[in-house]
């Protein structure tokens, strides 16, 4: 590989959500010129998507969306190298730096980043139930993306199901838009709210989150939206597309016609890049997900690699912004700038917020035994069409790890590269083997970390070790 093909960045940042924007802005203000690779066509991440040209105002979205404007303007006015529509499909640690393969505009470039901040964000948890592959079943985040991107709302009242703040936020936004949901099915039992009384300190810290949630819930109830707690099971029915939703409450099945079912079973760190970098991960019991390991103070995962925002563990938009800021400060401190006085109050605010987070995690836990209780025809891996029954059979035949299960059944080998079924496979193996998710681990992640076509590779500068690695 000739050096002419390699581009250099002092600091590269992956992602331009709150964490990436905060990190980049702070570094730019210190005179650096970070290179920011963003999968999206404009900055904001999921939470502040389309905020540079909002399609819907505060009267529908609420205040938290518009709140991102200050950060967005800071980012847009900063002197930095913003590269929208960029896919980091290759990442490899080399010495103290990282080599990145980045696809943009149909061709790939190689970048050598001396320092890397990974701020790639979260994704919605893949959560199988019968019929979740039917057109008309979407994740709640998708509904919100359509709202932000184009002011699009369902043309018939949807059914919302799952657990977590986003479920009620979306329902409330639909209500404000004049198209309230037909029914909300909350997988958290009503008794869950006793947590609030058991943990008064955390409840105090979480006060404003809880008030916001209660305000939304009461607005929905006042508007006549039915909210049912303690959902036990759900099925999407239909041929070519969703026609009805069946659900079980208190042991009794009921059925409601619907053309759109929006599900939300929490958000988890999007794993590809951190896994691709070979970073250590731990199973987080509160978040019920793997999170990459990093230093709690500096947010460094390895020398020269910092992790910020929800991709490093779910903390919400404000926490992500704080972490981006802290990662920038860690880089400046490494260059002997005196920034400790700036970091201390951010750490304090972050710790306060994290106490509230623990309560939210307890309130919105997904039901642990859910997957094993699904009918055997339920698809676990949507891409390859692998059912729960096929996974169970492979485990019974001795597939003892995610890699073997993949070889036995092809689960995780489709276009999404195991993002949606990885957690399910880990959970099923842990249940079958009577061990922990941590002991099971997850799929081995190999490049390409994002989809890239052979045609795109052909017109790109690709070093020999990459083509060798892709062949192997």
């Amino acid at each position: 590989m000739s050096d002419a093909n390699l581009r250099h960045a002092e600091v590269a940042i992956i992602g331009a959500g709150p964490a990436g924007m905060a990190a980049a802005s702070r570094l730019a203000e210190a005179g650096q010129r970070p290179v920011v690779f963003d999968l999206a066509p404009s900055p904001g991440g999921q939470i502040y998507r389309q905020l540079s040209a909002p399609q819907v105002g505060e009267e529908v979205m609420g205040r938290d969306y518009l709140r991102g404007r200050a950060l967005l303007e800071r980012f847009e006015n900063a002197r930095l190298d913003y590269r929208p529509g960029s896919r980091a499909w290759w990442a490899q640690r080399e010495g103290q730096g990282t080599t990145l393969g980045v696809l943009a505009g149909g061709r790939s470039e190689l970048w050598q980043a001396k320092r890397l901040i990974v701020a790639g964000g979260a994704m919605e948890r893949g959560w199988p139930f019968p019929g979740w592959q039917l057109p008309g079943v979407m994740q709640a985040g998708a509904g919100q993306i359509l709202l932000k991107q184009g002011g699009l709302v369902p043309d018939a009242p949807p059914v919302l199901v799952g657990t977590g703040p986003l479920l009620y936020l979306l329902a409330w936004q639909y209500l404000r838009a004049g198209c309230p949901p037909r029914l909300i099915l909350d997988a958290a039992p009503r008794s869950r709210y006793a947590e609030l009384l058991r943990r008064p300190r955390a409840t105090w810290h979480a006060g404003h989150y809880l008030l916001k949630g209660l305000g939304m819930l009461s607005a929905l109830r006042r508007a006549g939206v039915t909210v049912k707690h303690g959902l036990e099971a759900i099925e999407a029915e239909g041929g070519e597309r969703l026609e009805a939703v069946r659900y079980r409450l208190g042991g009794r099945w009921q059925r409601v016609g619907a053309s759109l079912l929006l599900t939300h079973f929490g958000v988890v760190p999007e794993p590809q890049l951190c896994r691709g970098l070979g970073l250590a991960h731990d199973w987080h019991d509160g978040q019920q997900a793997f999170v990459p390991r990093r230093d709690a103070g500096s947010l460094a995962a390895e020398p020269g690699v910092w992790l910020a925002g929800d991709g490093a563990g779910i903390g919400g938009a404000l926490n992500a912004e704080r972490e981006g800021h802290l990662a920038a400060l860690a880089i400046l401190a490494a260059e002997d700038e005196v920034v400790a006085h700036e970091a201390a109050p951010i750490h304090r605010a972050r710790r306060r917020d994290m106490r509230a987070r623990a309560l939210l995690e307890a309130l919105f836990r997904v039901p642990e035994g859910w997957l094993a209780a699904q009918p055997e025809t339920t698809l676990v891996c949507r891409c390859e069409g692998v059912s729960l029954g096929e996974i169970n059979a492979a485990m019974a035949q001795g597939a003892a790890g995610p890699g073997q299960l993949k070889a036995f059944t092809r689960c995780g080998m489709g276009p999404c590269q195991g993002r949606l079924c990885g957690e399910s496979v880990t959970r099923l193996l842990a249940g079958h083997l009577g061990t922990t998710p941590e002991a099971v681990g997850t799929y081995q992640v190999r490049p390409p970390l994002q989809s890239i076509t052979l045609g795109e590779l052909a017109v790109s500068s690709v070093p020999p070790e990459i083509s060798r690695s892709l062949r192997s």
Partner: protein
Amino acid sequence: MFKRLDKAVPVGEVTIWLENQPRRVPATLSAAAAVLWLDGSAGYRDHAAGGRRAPLCMMGVCHECLITVDGAPNRQGCLVPVAEGMRLERQRRSP
């Protein structure tokens, strides 16, 4: 399946060609969002194992939004912004 809010901020439109038919769509949409807005999720694409599929996540994760863009198959429609003259074809055989 989805409608545009009356109170949405006015936005420019572009003409895309969906299955060789010219269609006007808001310029802020992704290709996948445009298809959902125009025709809903029914018939979005076929799956190799049989049955129909349509976008699930709209944020680059699920790959259910695969669509042929300007002749190139298997593009993630949710990550491709619409553009004037863009040609979209539904996939009748796709992974």
